């Protein structure tokens, strides 16, 4: 599968998330406090809300609409009203860029 250049590493602040659209798909890119990068689907599995407006705390992303909680490192749904896990994608950094492997 191809690695797609998503953004510069500094485009995401520490312990934060940004939205990344690719083709007709939307994703959420995360940077943790220890500067690790992650990628998940961009929309909450509960309703069609962009997680990029949510709150990143430790390894968790909270949906801005209903406060559903996911572990963004593995996509696991942690708190209602989310019941379905998020899909995650491999991420690597090279030469100051964040690359995402899409299926």
């Amino acid at each position, binding site marked *: 599968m191809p690695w797609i250049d998503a953004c510069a590493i500094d485009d995401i602040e520490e312990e*934060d998330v940004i939205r990344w659209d690719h083709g007709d798909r939307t994703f959420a890119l995360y940077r943790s406090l220890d500067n690790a990068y992650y990628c998940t689907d961009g929309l909450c599995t*509960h*309703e*069609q809300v962009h997680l990029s*407006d*949510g*709150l990143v*705390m430790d390894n968790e992303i*909270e949906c*801005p*609409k*209903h*406060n559903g*909680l996911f572990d963004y490192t593995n996509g696991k749904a*942690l*708190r*209602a*009203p989310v*019941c379905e896990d998020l899909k995650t994608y491999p991420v690597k950094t090279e030469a100051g860029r964040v690359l995402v492997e899409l299926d």
Partner: protein
Amino acid sequence: MRREQKLVVRMRRETKRSKVNGRHLAKGETMDTTIGPASVNNTERQIPHDYSLTGPSTQYAIETGLAAAEWYHTDIPRKTMKELMKRRDGPAVRDTIIWVALLVLTAWLGIALWGSWWAVPFWLAYGVLYGSACDARWHECGHGTAFRTRWMNDVVYHVASFMVGRNPINWRWSHARHHTDTIIVGRDNEIAWQHPINMVLKALAYVGIYEFWITLTSLVRNARGNLSDDEKAYIPETEWPKAVFWARIHLAIYAVTVVASLAVLIGGAGWASTIPFLVIGGPRVYGCWHMVMTGLLQHGGLAENVIDHRLNSRTVYMNPISSWIYWHMEYHIEHHMFPMVPYYNLRKLHELIKDDLPPPNTSIYDAYREMFAAVMRQRREPGYYLRRDLPQTAKPYKGALHQFVPDRSDKPEKAA
């Protein structure tokens, strides 16, 4: 297939069937099977008005895009928003310690002074701390915003759910829907002011008897393994067993309370046998007036079926005691626009965005005066709603989609 899509398919099927079978609709209710954004003509067609979550209004909301719509938000820089959303344990731990201490103190003094009139004010205070303050704790911890630590939110959420008489599973999902589709008829299960407004029931709400009866019958129904069609519409099937479990837990606690009361009565303590009810369950009746007083202000007299919280929610400046009991939910437009902001940051959020909002009511009295006038007019003029003037600095009310929604106010002036 997504839940809404399934529902639309089911509704279409039911609509077709109802026409074939000639099913009767409620008074004033209309069924339009040609609903669709492009086909809607507000001046010519009637809008279904049915508060169930599986009726024609549900279909209308889904097909016109009112359901799960994109709502208006005031622009706030991401960095500022992150600061406002940031969670801490400190404020909620402090407030919870004070709350529990006051509950214990007032109940203890009420019991210690039993038989004297001096006990009365302590029971009244205990009643509000139990039967009203619990609502705000239920609400904030349900959102998961009160504490940073998740288990603290969960513990207080469950305790407060019992105190306020709500099944913690049903109401978690109900409230999620309330935030998705705030005051959208046929979608929102938490519309307090349903038209036509019954003022007798509204007045009775302040003493909680009717609502607590509804609560108890719902708990019994859930405990027997039954969920209503509305509950099934907003609670995922995987959660139904949990709803049954928690209903049984709540009923078991009430049963223990009854047994304790009977034991005291049999022991010959006479009127003191009412103490278990004054401590557990009873405050939901005799102490709920503050919860009702503040709760009815949230959306009363305002618009239905709009997608701008400035049109359907109310912010009210309140005295510090009410504000503490209510955990700052008086900033209700702000809360609905940004439900991730914890209660202790709502005042800051208000200061930041107030120039984009209608002016807040200056007191509970001022809000009631405004709301009461609007509600009385709604009783005379179905479809009327209070449309507050925005300051010049504000962006206009969100118009997108409103073209598909009935104009419920031909004279958009502020009610006297």
